[in-house]
């Protein structure tokens, strides 16, 4: 054993615990504005993730305790749960979580080895395979006539007998969905935005949720758990792309603030694109990664087949990480401005 003989107190567990803590304002806001259903989704995803993690560790011959204690599986579970529609059926949650932990994480080599963000892989698999079930979003309490209790939410999620009318009264299209559908119906942005789902910046309720995720993200930045480059570049990528499009034709492209104040954007910018394992590592690389993800998100929202594109944008940028890192190597102490040879 050689030097150094002392360590800073930080551990992977601590880093992950802070990430979970930083999600709490978002979760609290979620419960407050959209009802307690998300708690069921979060719990189910957590249990599934831990079980899958333990099983995979055992199968791969790794000790379960240190790796379960690192909390990374729970982070994946929560990020996926927060990306899913709040009233998504139980099997959807389990399928997505299993795919994230088993395939995206462990089949790629486990903690630290996955090329793609596991939560986003889980999400992508679900939205491609089960597009209909992925639209079961509960509307904000402010706009819905029926408010589900925790037990009622659980009943809905576990496929219990819920009157169709109740379900219809609870679910509604997300603001991004509403904008997309409206634009497809040849309405102008201004016409679409008269819909009650649209609030000050983003959607009613949704904008507050986005704000809560932003708050948690700033906490992570203040604690230096995430760097500023990725979130700022991601938000800049969205804002610049949306701003350019909106400036080009305000009738066909939504305003930049609306695109920015979506919960998916804030969650993506501060919690998902900042995933160190699947993200770029160099300072300039992080800027490229964030800008690229922001641009791709807007491109998918505008021209793609899905109402939101954060997951696909981040996965596509995950693909580019080795290339980005290689070509953005920083200058070293006393070194010339040059990347290493390929």
């Amino acid at each position, binding site marked *: 054993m050689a030097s150094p003989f002392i360590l800073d107190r930080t551990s992977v567990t601590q*880093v992950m615990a802070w990430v979970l803590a930083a999600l709490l304002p978002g979760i609290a806001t979620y419960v407050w504005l959209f009802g307690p259903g998300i708690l069921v989704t979060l719990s189910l995803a957590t249990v599934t993730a831990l079980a899958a993690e333990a099983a995979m560790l055992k199968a791969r011959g790794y000790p379960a305790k240190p790796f379960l204690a690192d909390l990374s599986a729970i982070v994946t579970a929560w990020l996926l749960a927060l990306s899913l529609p709040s009233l998504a059926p139980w099997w959807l949650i389990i399928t997505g979580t299993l795919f994230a932990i088993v395939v995206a994480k462990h089949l790629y080599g486990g903690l630290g080895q996955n090329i793609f963000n596991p939560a986003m892989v889980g999400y992508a698999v679900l939205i491609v395979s089960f597009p209909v079930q992925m639209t079961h979003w509960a509307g904000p309490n402010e706009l819905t006539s029926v408010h589900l209790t925790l037990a009622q939410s659980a009943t809905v999620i576990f496929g219990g007998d819920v009157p169709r009318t109740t379900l219809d009264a609870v679910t509604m299209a997300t603001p991004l969905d509403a904008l997309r559908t409206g634009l497809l119906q040849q309405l102008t942005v201004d016409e679409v935005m008269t819909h009650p789902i649209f609030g000050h910046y983003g959607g009613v309720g949704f904008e507050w949720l986005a704000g809560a995720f932003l708050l948690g993200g700033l906490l992570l930045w203040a604690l*230096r758990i995430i760097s500023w480059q990725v979130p700022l570049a991601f938000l800049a990528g969205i804002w610049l792309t949306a701003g350019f499009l909106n400036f080009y034709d305000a009738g066909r492209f939504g305003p930049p603030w609306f695109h920015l104040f979506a919960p998916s954007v804030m969650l993506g910018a501060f919690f998902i694109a900042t995933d160190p394992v699947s993200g770029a590592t160099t300072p300039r690389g992080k800027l490229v990664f964030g800008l690229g993800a922001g641009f791709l998100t807007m491109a998918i929202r505008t021209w793609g087949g899905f109402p939101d594109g954060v997951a696909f944008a981040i996965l596509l940028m995950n693909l580019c990480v080795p290339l980005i890192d290689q070509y953005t190597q920083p200058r070293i102490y*006393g070194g010339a401005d040059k990347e290493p040879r390929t």
Partner: protein
Amino acid sequence: MSRELFRFKGGVHPPEHKAESTSRPIHAAPLPKKLVIPLRQHIGNPAKPVVEVGERVLKGQMIAAADGYISTAVHASSSGTVAAIDLQPVPHISGLPDLCITIETDGRDEWVAHAPLDYQAMESPQLRMQLRDLGLAGLGGAVFPSAVKLDPGASHACPTLIINGGECEPWITCDDMLMRHHADEILQGVAIMRHLLGSTEILVGIEDNKPEALDSMRSAAAKLDFAVEVVKVPARYPGGGAKQMIETLTGKQVPSGKLSTDIGIQVFNVGTSYALARAIHHGEPLISRLVTVTGHVLRPQNFEVLIGTPMHTLITLAGDRDGTTGVLMGGPMMGVPVPNLDVPVVKATNCILVKSKELFPPLPKALPCIRCTRCADACPAELQPQELFRFAKAGDFGRAQEYHLFDCIECGCCSYVCPSHIPLVDFYRYAKGEIWAREKDKRAADLARERHEFRQFRQEREKKEKAEKLAAKAQAKRAELAAVPAAEGAAVSDADAKKALIAAALARAQAKKTDTAPKNVDQLTPEQLHQIEEIEARRTKIRELARKPLESEEKKP
């Protein structure tokens, strides 16, 4: 007015633990019964012994001389008798024993004749030779021969001289204590350095966690007849590293693969400056130094210690305690574990840090790297430690080198901050070692190939030369033979000439054969002949046996 400071990238703030060892005054450690003085205490060639076993030596007497330019002498730290010149355990990262001169002290501590040097009257090269013979080496940790560093060279002017009082490693306080109590002598050394290097700007960098040292050095500097700026620098590990101190004070970076003198800056540790002053003004060679003994001991403090003193005597002096889990030479960030406590204090020993389970809990097991880049944020060499780790682990040493592995200063910041507790520096040391070993192998292979190629070339050349020589000879002979019949007036055909040539050659060969025939068998006694016959018979038999297949081979189809 305060100087504009620059911020070097990276660095960490480990707990300082400096106060433990600064509350007690400096004690002179007593003379031990036995001094074990290694010959390799500096960078460069080890010193060559100039004494013999059984010889009586005096304190300060040179016992091993510098060997070459990058080397420095070694001296007896006290008077006594040379008991042994052999391999002894030494405090070194390799853990291997090294050649040492053991002196049994006589307790009289009798000095060899020594006198101050009038350095201003001496020629610089001559003065540097004196410093080399006085055993001066950098006491900040690298122990590079000071005489070499004090040579600005023909092309290098050294306008800026930096005196490093950073002492950024946790626990260590010997430089702090030296500055508090010997500021005047340190600055006397600075005057000598200034004289040798021709420096016009002199800066003393001291971290802001040493206010007493700052005060003491400032008031000493105020008394000088030349300008020395004592600068308070923010405490941040490894701010006391030479490169980091240079950047903090001047904003300049030493180009990768170059020396600080290439940008007109030379850096010396305060301890070196003090030793230099003792050497010049008292004629004393480097035979003692300040050593911090701290950590898991009853009375952490600094000792003035003779080089060669066994470490256990110092730990006993400081009050050893139960529950010791190991001893480090140096600090917790870059120190090396000592193989046992009999190892001596050497010129590089700034600190003896006694570990316990409470002060140095065992490091947790490493988890996989999650590429969080905390290491990159902490790296003062501005490297990408996570990439170096990946390449080193995969054995991709070429890529590791492309990612500037050899710019790593092994300060330990990356390992310190790693949330996965990966011993990153171990991986870099391993990769560096592998690359050196491969380069050595490659050099050996290249040398062998060169030798082989040269041998082939030589054989070819010799063959060619022989052929040319023969051809020339034949030509001469032919001309000679042709000349004779020509003189006789008869035409001789080519075939005849050739025939004659062959006949002549045969005659020559015959003559040679008779010349070289063994003459010692001509007149032998019958006994000898008999012996020869017997030997010949045995040899024939052996030859036959050798020709016969082995039984085991016969059985095979």
